[in-house]
């Protein structure tokens, strides 16, 4: 009997090890009708991987184009070069980090100022140049209205574009740079236009029409959008065009709430309420007004010579309030301007993409849905909430690495649907949310 056992036990164990492990087929990977061999990305800060109020190495590595390129490799994608900040200068422009919370639970942020890639501060802050070839043409801050501005990449222009603009051709426009790269590209993503309305919104709508950050005229927007998409597709490349999300859905505008501020004021004195400065005068704030993330630093602070702290008051007449300055409020009228511009821009982008038979990532619809219901994945609840939501970084506008991962996945869905490909998705939980001290 012993011998029977001695023979049986190892045989069973062997069977367990060798035969028992189930195998699940790897998902198929197919390029469909697209060609991913040379992918370029065109866009602004979102495309560059901007996060936490700055551009730095980790954000660059988590940029959605870089994540996409990694997935494209499964279906014949080539190498994807980015103008990465080098080791020792990995903090790039510097960025915000979370330093802790106040006793009342408000976040405290601090600037990272070490290991920057600043090469000079005259005539303005300029960064260590990157002269090798790049596939990621994302330029933080660029507006669609800027793409044909000569000198936009000069030392007096946009420092992020300056660092990748050929030194021998400092007046080359973004448009001409894209045209040169598009000549050999087989696939592209294009997500431009956010800054044509974002600057106006984050400045609380105080900019007038002549300001360089005013809302871009919709006819100008359409003209430039058509030009860039024409040049991207001139060589037969396929790609994705992304729409512009309504900025009113981001934590920059949804974290500081009128109702909460009013409640705080009333707790100290039931007569107090929140008053705001608008273009048409001072009035009591309503729940429809959006306060900027930056307003939290000034609301409630003392003003010399004024009996009320900033934002507080009992009435609109002079001396009865200390209204919150207009730059910290996107009031209902300003929100309408932002929304109308966003809608018009998206109409232009969508029409042009459809004309060229391109895939469309409707970022506006997607982020509206995120704002409404959040986005759960792998047992983790992600929302559009500031800090706790995992998806938006500390600047309240740009995504975290996890946020960029879900953007990459949405683009992959759009690509697969349009081109019959089966590009695999990334796992969002492999990418971080906000880091805590």
């Amino acid at each position, binding site marked *: 009997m012993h011998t029977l056992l001695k023979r049986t036990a190892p045989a069973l164990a062997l069977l*367990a090890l060798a035969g028992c492990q*189930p195998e699940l087929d790897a998902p198929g990977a197919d390029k469909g009708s697209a060609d991913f061999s040379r992918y370029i990305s065109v866009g602004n800060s979102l495309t560059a991987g901007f996060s936490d109020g700055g551009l730095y190495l980790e954000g660059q590595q988590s940029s959605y184009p870089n994540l996409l390129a990694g997935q494209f490799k499964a279906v014949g994608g080539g190498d994807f070069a980015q103008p990465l900040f080098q080791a020792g200068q990995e903090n790039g422009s510097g960025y915000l980090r979370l330093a802790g919370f106040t006793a009342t639970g408000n976040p405290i942020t601090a600037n990272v100022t070490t290991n920057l890639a600043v090469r000079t501060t005259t005539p303005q802050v300029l960064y260590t140049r990157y002269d090798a070839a790049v596939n990621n043409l994302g330029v933080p801050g660029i507006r669609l209205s800027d793409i044909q501005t000569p000198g936009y990449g000069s030392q007096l222009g946009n420092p992020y574009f300056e660092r990748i603009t050929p030194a021998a051709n400092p007046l080359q426009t973004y448009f001409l740079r894209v045209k040169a790269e598009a000549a050999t590209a087989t696939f592209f993503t294009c997500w431009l236009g956010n800054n044509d309305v974002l600057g106006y919104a984050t400045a609380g709508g105080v900019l007038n029409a002549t300001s360089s950050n005013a809302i871009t005229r919709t006819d100008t927007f359409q003209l430039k959008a058509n030009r860039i998409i024409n040049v991207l597709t001139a060589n037969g490349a396929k790609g994705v065009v992304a729409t512009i999300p309504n900025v009113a859905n981001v934590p920059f505008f949804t974290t500081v709430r009128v109702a909460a501020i009013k409640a705080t004021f009333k707790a100290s004195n039931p007569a107090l309420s929140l008053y705001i400065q608008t273009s048409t005068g001072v009035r009591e704030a309503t729940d429809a007004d959006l306060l900027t993330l930056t307003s939290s630093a000034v609301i409630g602070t003392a003003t010399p010579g004024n009996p009320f702290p900033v934002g507080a008051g009992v009435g609109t007449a002079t001396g009865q309030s200390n209204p919150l300055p207009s730059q910290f409020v996107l009031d209902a009228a300003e929100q309408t301007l932002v929304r109308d511009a966003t809608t018009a821009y998206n109409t232009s982008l969508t029409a042009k993409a459809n004309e060229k038979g391109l895939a469309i990532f409707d970022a506006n619809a997607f982020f509206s849905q995120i704002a409404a219901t959040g986005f759960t994945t792998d047992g*983790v609840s992600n929302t559009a909430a500031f800090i706790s939501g995992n998806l938006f970084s500390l600047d309240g506008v740009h995504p975290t690495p996890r946020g960029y991962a879900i953007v990459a996945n949405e683009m992959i869905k759009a690509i697969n649907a349009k081109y019959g490909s089966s590009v695999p*998705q990334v796992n969002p*939980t492999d990418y971080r949310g906000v880091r805590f*001290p």
Partner: protein
Amino acid sequence: MTSKSLLLVSGVLLTGTAASAGGYQVTLAGQKNNGMGGVGVGLSLDQAAMFYNPGALAMVKDRGVQVGVNATMARQAFRSQYGGPQRELKSNIVTPFNLYAGFGSEDRKFAAGIAIYTPFGNKVEYADGWEGRYSLTGIDLKSIYVQPTVSYAVTDKLSVGAGMVILAYGAVNLQKDIPVEGAAGAQPAHVELDGKATTKIGFNAGIYFKPTDKLSIGASYRSKIDAQVEGGDVTFSNVPAALGSRFTATEFDATLPLPATTSLGIGFMPNENLTLGFDVNYVEWSKYKTLQFDFRGNNGAGGLVAPSGQVGGSNISTSRREYKDAVTLRLGGQYLLTSGLTVRAGGSYDFSPVEDGFVTPETPDADRIGLTLGASYKFGSFGVDISGQFIDLKERTQTEAELVANNTADRVAGTYKTRVLIPGIGLNYTF
């Protein structure tokens, strides 16, 4: 020799178990039964009748003592909905066991005995870094029942029996990562819940009827016990200091139902050497609606004032289970080859109590097919039983959209496939 082996086996008794029936039920209570697809309710094979049907104990011919142990070796594959590499469990071998001692009166009217077995258990441990780590990294659920049993033969064809079922030992250890990160390169936060269940009492009862030499019928019922953990330990690691006020819990309470099982069985003995059995088990899994943890305590609150007993800012964690009652069908037989050697074979089909879109990493359940083989060799009063089971769980997929729709998004979307191999060995002594 045998007594030495007995000691050896009892040395590995205090261990956990792994899923080998629907949900976290384990039906590995007798080595002879294991070889026959798990049938036993309509049979009176040996002292393991105390588990399968206490009513049949009085009809067991011999007085005896037996011990048995199994080694469950589960192999699992998981692929996330998002793609990526196949994930597998860490290789764990867990050892459900059983021990029976049964004695009969001289006139064969009364029988009594004590049974120790492990009817529920579950152990899974996922490989590091898997995408479901925020849902679960590992669980180890154990239960040991002790059952004093009496049985009485009303006539020589009809017997009844009952036992007091004592949840003598129950323990749960559950671990998962928490989706908050500290400094670059740091591991995500992690929580471990570890607790022992309080002693609880239920019952097991059965009736056995053998109208002819060729036919027997049995029915049995084992009652539900709620395994209750009170004041289990909550241990955090890697929680960023700034979030200390949201992770203050030190203790938890939780209740897990160990559901009632009703069984019917039929035995056929067409000739002296052949025994066939057919069983149906009905398990009242629908009692398992939610898994809730209540948290208490305050570990210092990270220097901040906050409500006590928080895990991620909440005093409570509730997760939908919504199991449904489930049936297992079993078929098996044994054949006496020589006076000493008996061979067995059988199979089972187990309907999962877990509905679509409710599959959790802790119990990645699916309908399952079991195939079994077994043999016994008897020399004198001693006997050795061996068994082997191969359990194949159907491939099962759930999408994030299904999870969101069910409000079960606290688990992972993807495809599971599991196989389990369970060799077992038992020793018995009859007198």
